[in-house]
């Protein structure tokens, strides 16, 4: 499709506008984080010098080393678990014939539209009965389940986009379902999988409500929860707060940049018919 010059200009204008809207507060955050810690108002600009010490202060005072470790444990476990199960369920829904496949899939996909806030209270009671509150599992299990609906949907779409003949060829070559999945399909599915893993990691990393409900012990506190406590203790110290916010956001941003290329490829895969 060819665009006229006016259309191109329009595209840039619209995209530029929204990019500015997104970047503007981020610039404010960075400038505040680097600003004078004694100032009691948020700052925009670097007039009074760059104070990198805000980061080390926030790191020490907020115990972010502990919280980040908790977050890494929770997000990594939930992401790995969710990816693994989504691959298996997506593969089954896409390639295998079994009774009730359509109904089951419809039920599962409904999970995408159920907000996690709606189920957090019953989840709390359930996990408390199991004695799992205040543990990493109380965060890993519900989040894995929550993302599974999307994950299954996503992986099923990928498996359906693979030419059927490839699965047939593997079958004739003597591969069983398990070998077909891991040796033929998943090597092709890396972009789809990485996209899903990045999304899952981002969602679990940023999860706040569940952590607030399930966790009371400081030792298993995740970073967003820790940030909220930190804010309570330093309400007006904007430089310190901004630095802490950046510390908590950094891993996800880094991850996104790292996988950006795969991410876009994954988003587009299957969108175009070959």
């Amino acid at each position, binding site marked *: 499709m060819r665009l006229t010059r006016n259309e191109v200009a329009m595209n840039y204008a619209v995209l530029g506008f929204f990019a500015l809207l997104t970047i503007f507060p981020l610039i404010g955050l960075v400038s505040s984080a680097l600003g004078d810690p004694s100032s009691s108002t948020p700052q925009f600009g670097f007039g009074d010098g760059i104070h990198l010490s805000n980061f080390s202060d926030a790191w020490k005072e907020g115990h972010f080393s502990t919280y980040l470790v908790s977050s890494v444990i929770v997000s990594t476990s939930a992401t790995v678990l969710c990816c693994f199960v989504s691959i298996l369920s997506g593969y089954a829904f896409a390639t295998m014939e079994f009774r009730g496949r359509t109904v089951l899939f419809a039920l599962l996909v409904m999970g995408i539209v159920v907000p996690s806030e709606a189920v957090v209270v019953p989840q709390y009671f359930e996990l408390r009965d199991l004695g799992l509150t205040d543990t990493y599992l109380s965060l890993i299990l519900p989040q894995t389940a929550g993302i599974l609906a999307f994950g299954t949907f996503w992986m099923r779409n990928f498996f359906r986009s693979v*030419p059927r*003949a*490839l699965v*047939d*060829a*593997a*079958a*004739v*070559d*003597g*591969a*069983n379902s398990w*070998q077909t999945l891991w*040796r*033929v399909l998943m*090597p*092709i599915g890396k972009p789809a999988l990485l996209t899903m893993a990045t999304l899952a990691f981002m969602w679990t990393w940023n999860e706040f409500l569940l952590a607030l409900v399930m966790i009371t012990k400081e030792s298993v506190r995740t970073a967003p929860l820790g940030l909220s406590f930190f804010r309570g203790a330093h309400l007006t110290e904007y430089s310190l707060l901004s630095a802490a916010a950046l510390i908590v956001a950094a891993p996800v941003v880094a991850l996104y940049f790292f996988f950006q290329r795969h991410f876009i490829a994954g988003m587009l895969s299957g969108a175009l018919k070959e």
Partner: protein
Amino acid sequence: MAGIVFDDVTKRYPDGTQAVSGLDLEVADGELLILVGPSGCGKSTALRMVAGLEEVSDGALRIDGRVVNDLAPKDRDVAMVFQNYALYPQMTVRQNMGFALKLAKVSKAEVDAKVREAAEVLDLTEHLDRRPGALSGGQRQRVAMGRAIVRAPKAFLMDEPLSNLDAKLRVQMRASIAHLQDRLGSTMLYVTHDQVEAMTLGDRVAVMRGGVLQQVGPPKVLYQRPANVFVAGFIGSPPMNFLPGELADDGLATPLGFTPLPDDLRQAVAASTLAGRAVVAGIRPEHLTRQRPDTALPALRFAATVDLAEELGAEVLAHFSAPPAPADLPDRALVARLTGATGELARGTRLDLWLDPHGLELFDPETGYSLRTAAPA
């Protein structure tokens, strides 16, 4: 190596459509049998049942004498070449070709030796470490063949393996497949919709239509003695001409005029219930000639006006219309394959043509069966 037997095999889909109906067919050990037919005729389904990719609804399917209906694809020891090759994109040519052996836990050295050997046969040695994406269509096709060859399976199944290649490459590959099959002496079931491929490649050809086997036989028999109107029209390019006819007095009245019938056809008519009735007459384009055919019978001669002349070098295809002689029959397009001095043909040229009575085929207008071959029950 082993034979493949379809014993009254039927494939029915859950929605009730019948892709293959009561197929009885035997591929002998070491034979190259071609399954041909228009798209949707059930030929690919039949092939996929042999591979184990489709379940058999009814009947028995045997490979090497053993019923394989309930056997998984991997336990059937057959190799398949797919229309779009279905190469594993992430693997190199070497890995693609060795994948099946590796799964079968063949030792690494042996896999390597077999892959090397097959690559040599197929002229792929220099491409062994490339991925399919970096290969041309013809090379990919050869890798797909190689993947089948290295396994030395009981039977090869080919699903329109050449249909994605350009015309020239297709002719080349056709020759090399025939050569390869001959050299390996392997049983091969080959599906195609291209009747030229079927005619040139196979020991025997099986023609299917609407899930039903129409005729099996050597290419020449299918061409010269088609069992029914469908086979007659499907095999041969340009296809057989069809004319309405009326049987009378040891001969046949057609829109082109009255033609006598040779002895064998007269006997066939006498043995049928169609004497004195309407039939469909078929005549191959090469049996409409400019020279008087070599026969003692008083052959039919008629005048034709050329609508279109297709110059093919060694021959000319002259298209013309049959005069709508008896009553109100519509004009029928006919083709004559003319050889020899034909250079001056053009639209509007008037020709005197002969109809060789020995080239005639007669078909029952209701069942479509040839009068020569009694209709199978």
